[in-house]
């Protein structure tokens, strides 16, 4: 996976933050990808999300979801990622073909998309199922039927989480700038290809990784 070189091909960031965060004042709407084999549930979830001011894409299967994300091996994932910017994936658990759990695994295995929060929805409140999903990295497990309060809570929680991460990065960056003897580095836009691979995060949306431009 030539992640780091694809980054520089897409667009040159004007400052360090653009490589790793989406500023919270981003005019782009919160985009949710909803996956459910039931047309009734897709219609309801779409309405719930639109009323909550989200941009929504609904698909009927895990396979379609992977196609949409460009993870099916047929589309170039980097090309799709920029235009789409999916902020949250909500998937039904019981679906024919690929289950929501299997979809969750595929997303978490992808270096491009693993940072996107995934929420599992299920009509069945089965504890081992819930545990398994959470262990695999699901953000939350919602028992159906999904209510407006579930969506509102979820959206707030995820946006808050991104804001906090973004603030954290700002604070850490300021600290680096302050401590670093080579402070001029922070002002220059680094080309991702030029950085040693150990400090390039696996995805632009990566939350836990950040660069250290100079060690103290």
């Amino acid at each position: 996976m030539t992640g780091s070189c694809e980054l520089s091909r897409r667009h040159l960031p004007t400052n360090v933050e653009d490589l790793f965060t989406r500023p919270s004042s981003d005019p782009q709407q919160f985009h949710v990808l909803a996956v459910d084999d039931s047309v009734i549930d897709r219609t309801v979830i779409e309405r719930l999300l639109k009323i909550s001011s989200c941009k929504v894409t609904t698909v009927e299967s895990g396979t379609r979801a992977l196609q949409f994300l460009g993870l099916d091996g047929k589309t170039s994932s980097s090309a799709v990622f920029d235009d789409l910017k999916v902020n949250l994936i909500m998937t039904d658990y019981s679906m024919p073909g690929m289950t929501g759990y299997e979809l969750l695994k595929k997303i978490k295995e992808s270096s491009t998309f693993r940072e996107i929060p995934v929420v599992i929805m299920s009509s069945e409140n089965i504890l081992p199922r819930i545990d398994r999903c959470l262990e695999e990295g699901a953000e939350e497990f919602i028992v159906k039927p999904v209510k407006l309060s579930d969506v509102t809570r979820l959206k707030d929680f995820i946006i808050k989480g991104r804001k906090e991460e973004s603030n954290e990065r700002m604070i850490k960056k300021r600290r680096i700038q302050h401590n670093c003897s080579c402070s001029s580095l922070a002002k220059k836009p680094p080309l991702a290809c030029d950085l040693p691979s150990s400090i390039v995060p696996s995805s632009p949306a990566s939350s836990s990784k950040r660069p250290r431009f100079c060690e103290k």
Partner: protein
Amino acid sequence: MELGQLQRRFLEYTRSLHADGFLDDQFSQLQQLQDESNPDFVLEVVSLFFEDSEKLLNALSLALDQQTVDFKRIDAHVHQLKGSSSSIGAHRVKNVCIAFRNFCEQQNVEACRGCLQQLKQEYYLVKTKLETLFRLEQQIVAAGGSIPLME
């Protein structure tokens, strides 16, 4: 009938459907998602439910008529119906589905057949009642009023 009367009738009817367990809170949730920008939202979802349910009920009849009953397939159909009835708040239909699934698990053909009959009954009941509700709604809209929601 004047607007106020129509609206009261609508409210009373909605309340009775809830009280009798035909509809539950999820239906109210759907009503709250309807507005001027999406005035037919509930009708749209319920119509999808009717379409889906009728297909499933037919498939269930067929499956239970077979020489060898495929319980796995039947369970899958009932699971789908349980999901969709739950999503629109068709409470009694959902409850019959739950019982139905238990009988599938037990592989009890007779009990399953009995459940299917009950399911058909409950489905046609809620369908009739929802159609009545939508007619009342149409009359209110035609009279220039807004749809009152239950508290």
